[in-house]
């Protein structure tokens, strides 16, 4: 459903992506891994046309070209995006944050407030809190919940575990599994795979703005030299 | 050019604060030029009007005047409205020695400190108007306490000063409180009205105009100003017209420059009013009448001088006696270029046949009595040096 072919993209003049190839099929969870600053976030931004400009290559979703569309149009086609810095609306309450998403997006499943509260019961508890004062983990949940309300068929999750306590991270993994069961495809960026190996199907390794390796999770673990070469040495 | 047309340079504030006044003046001047030309022109030469927009800015006024004088070779400069533009233009007239008169702008500064021999003004200057108001107020013995009010700038201050000084002279026992000076063009007069009424005056003399005046009258009604006091202010025909129904039915007294309803007993004036109405579909305002009178006075002076050459013309300007719409025997005093133009003070009243208030019992004050004597002016000029 999503396909990137030889995508180059840049911020103003500085090039961040130098050849990204990847695809996501319906219902699949694909993991994008690589260390800091290699271009995982930029890849996601290139998909939703946020901040970054695609200078070369093709980005298509369900056979229609996304380059040149405005972000809200892409989201309405069924691509949800949870940015790495979460970007909750600081001065709005949780409930208000959840009312921002446009319901016009046409996904298979129509998410309601009750659905997301069922997924993240803590949010219901804190629904009247100002989003800005919540902890990072809570903000992360809010950000995911908010995206779900755009009824995505494909969800882009940028480092969903970043800064989360292990327990919370576990909950997010749980949520991803649940979403996968709902049939939502996902592209998840990670620095290291261990957090979501339970739910990921395939892996792309990104380095210096390029996809340098891809394969199934099993293959990834079968090739420790990939980790040696492209990920953090531990 | 001795045989070409006589060129009248009209540099007026067609845009900016003066636009409404200048439009009326220009209408009448256009009409006057047509009439003159139909009757063979001045000294047998056609009159050509060259119009420029000063945007009511002194630098623009000066620049346009200079351009018309050197570029268009105009014989006469006029059209000015605001005091500052007038002072800027009179300086140009002085430098380039081109006759210049004012029919709207009326600061006495142009007669006193800034006087120059090529200048005259054909309406009562601001000081004369204030003196006329004082004369009128002095005749109301039941008014014992007066609050003067004026816009906080030269015109407001000098009007209040002249009014106060003259009234004190006429009625030493009358109580005149400290003046109140709202900022120019203030749209919210409520605080000033409150302050004025707190002094429990029998009358308020207000040297304000335009938006500020409209606000004073409209907002004053809410404070019972016209039950508790009287208002004496500058009320030209355009102000009466724009107030419409909102004008209080009584206790407003207006000082005017050339209200058409006060000059209707003259044949010429009636004809002019009729002609103007048929041409522009509205009554001529004070600005139209003075503008027309000004042009006709120039024509008379030029005929008398037999030339429009500046020095000869100025000699005639200072010598001739002119019968105009506002009455007979109008003369320009050589000492300060001031015409002995009358001032009109009356009581606002709604009369049949008009869809706006006019004034009744209008008293006409002849110019001579209102003008500062030459000694006073000389003293002021010396003091300014």
């Amino acid at each position, binding site marked *: 459903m999503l396909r990137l072919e030889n995508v180059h993209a840049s911020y103003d003049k500085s090039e961040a992506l130098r050849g990204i190839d990847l695809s996501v099929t319906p219902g699949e969870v694909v993991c994008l891994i690589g260390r800091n600053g290699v271009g995982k976030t930029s890849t996601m931004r290139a998909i939703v046309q946020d901040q970054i400009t695609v200078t070369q290559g093709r980005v298509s979703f369900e056979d229609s070209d996304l380059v040149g569309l405005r972000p809200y149009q892409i989201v309405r086609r069924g691509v949800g*995006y949870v940015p790495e810095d979460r970007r909750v609306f600081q001065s709005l309450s949780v409930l208000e944050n959840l009312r921002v998403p446009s319901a016009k997006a046409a996904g298979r499943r129509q998410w309601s407030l009750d659905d997301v509260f069922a997924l993240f019961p803590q949010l219901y508890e804190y629904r009247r809190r100002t989003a800005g004062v919540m902890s990072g983990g809570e903000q992360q949940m809010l950000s995911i919940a908010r995206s779900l309300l755009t009824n995505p068929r494909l969800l882009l999750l940028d480092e969903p575990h970043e800064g989360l306590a292990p327990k919370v991270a576990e909950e997010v993994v749980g949520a991803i599994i649940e979403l996968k069961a709902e049939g939502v495809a996902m592209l998840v960026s990670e620095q290291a795979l261990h957090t979501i190996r339970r739910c990921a199907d395939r892996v792309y390794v990104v380095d210096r703005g390029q996809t340098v390796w891809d394969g199934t999770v099993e293959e990834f673990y079968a090739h420790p030299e990939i980790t040696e070469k492209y990920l953090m040495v531990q | 050019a001795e045989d070409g047309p006589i060129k009248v340079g009209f540099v007026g504030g067609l845009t900016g604060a003066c636009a409404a006044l200048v439009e009326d003046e220009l209408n009448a001047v256009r009409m006057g030029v047509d009439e003159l030309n139909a009757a063979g022109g001045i000294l047998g030469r056609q009159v050509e009007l060259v119009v420029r927009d000063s945007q009511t800015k002194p630098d623009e006024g000066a620049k346009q005047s200079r351009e018309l004088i050197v570029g268009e070779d105009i014989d006469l400069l006029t059209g000015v409205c605001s005091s500052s533009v007038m002072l800027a233009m009179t300086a140009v007239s002085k430098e380039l020695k081109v006759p210049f008169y004012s029919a709207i702008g009326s600061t006495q500064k142009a007669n006193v400190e800034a006087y120059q021999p090529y200048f005259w003004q054909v309406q009562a200057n601001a000081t004369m108007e204030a003196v006329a108001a004082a004369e009128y107020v002095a005749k109301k013995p039941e008014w014992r306490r007066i609050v003067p009010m004026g816009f906080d700038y030269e015109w407001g201050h000098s009007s209040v000063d002249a009014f106060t000084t003259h009234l004190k002279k006429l009625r030493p026992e009358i109580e005149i409180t400290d003046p109140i*000076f709202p900022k120019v063009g203030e749209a919210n007069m409520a605080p000033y009205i409150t302050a004025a009424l707190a002094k429990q005056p029998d009358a308020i003399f207000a040297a304000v105009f335009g938006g500020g005046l409209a606000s004073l009258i409209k907002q004053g009604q809410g404070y019972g100003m016209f039950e508790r006091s009287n208002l004496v202010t500058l009320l030209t025909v355009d102000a009466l017209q*724009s107030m419409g129904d909102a004008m209080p039915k009584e206790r407003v007294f207006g000082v005017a420059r050339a209200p058409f309803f006060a000059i209707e007993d003259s044949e010429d004036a009636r004809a002019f009013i009729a002609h103007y109405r048929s041409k522009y579909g509205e009554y001529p305002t004070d600005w139209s009448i003075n503008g027309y009178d000004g042009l006709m006075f120039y024509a008379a002076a030029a005929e008398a001088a037999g030339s429009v050459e500046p020095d000869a013309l100025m000699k005639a300007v200072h010598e001739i006696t002119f019968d105009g719409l506002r009455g007979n025997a109008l003369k320009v005093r050589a000492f300060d270029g001031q015409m002995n133009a009358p001032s009109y003070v009356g009581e606002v009243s709604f009369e049949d046949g008009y869809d706006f208030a006019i004034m009744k019992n209008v008293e006409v004050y002849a110019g001579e009595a209102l003008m500062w004597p030459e000694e006073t002016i000389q003293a002021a000029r010396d003091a300014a040096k």
Partner: protein
Amino acid sequence: MILVQLVNGLMEGMMLFLIASGLTLIFGVSRIINFAHGSLYMLGAFLTWQLVPLLAPGTVAGFFGAVLLSAVLVAVIGTIFEMLILRRIYGADTLMQLIITIALVFILRDAVRTIWGPNSLSVPMPDAMMGALVIGDNFFPIFPFVIFGAGLVVVLAMILVIHFTRAGILLRAATDDRGMASLLGVNEKLVFTLVFAAGCFLAGLAGGMAAPYGDVNYLLDTTVIVSAFIVCVIGGLGNLYGALAGAMVVGVTKAMGVMFFPRLAMVLIFLIMAAVLVARSLGRQAGPAR
């Protein structure tokens, strides 16, 4: 008299708030300094003058109908302008947007002068709003209370919209993080257009409401824009409650100034503005977050 002046000040304050609310609204969301705000106010006043005689003159309903209709017309004009011109240069330097709105000032001034002439006009006050409440020696005219009421309605409506409707939520979300709103499927350009329209509506509304209280002339634009700036700056640009507070401060100061420093009337407000700005600068400011 102090009491009356205080009331005068509060009344003027609310008028100023009406004037400034639209400016601050637009700035808050789109960072555009709308120099044409005063011109739109003026347009609202002239349209009201035109409409009042057509809609049951002299009646309260006729008056409010005319004011609302004028405000809507002004909003329509603003929207067209935003969609045709302003929207094209959202990417350029904000100063270019400023120049664009200055150009609009020129255009509207000429349009108004051409259509209605340079003379000042008078909008009749509905009969029911004339007169005053007389308490002892003190007169409290009714009309300012009407304006005050209208201002209150606007404040309440804005609070209601901003805090309790989805439109308000979107508006605040776009103010917080415009890009993220777009990433949630919100057409943020449309939000901008609507906010601009709302700002213009408020400008027109203020112009219409104030029309019967003074005269309507084609020089209102400059005086109004300067007051609106002052109010917004004192209250903090883009801050609705700040604008309300700023308006009250300016209104009351002006009224009190008449009693205590009559000669300072013209500068007083600017002195306050300068003082507020300088006070804002005291204390050490933080460097960049990173």
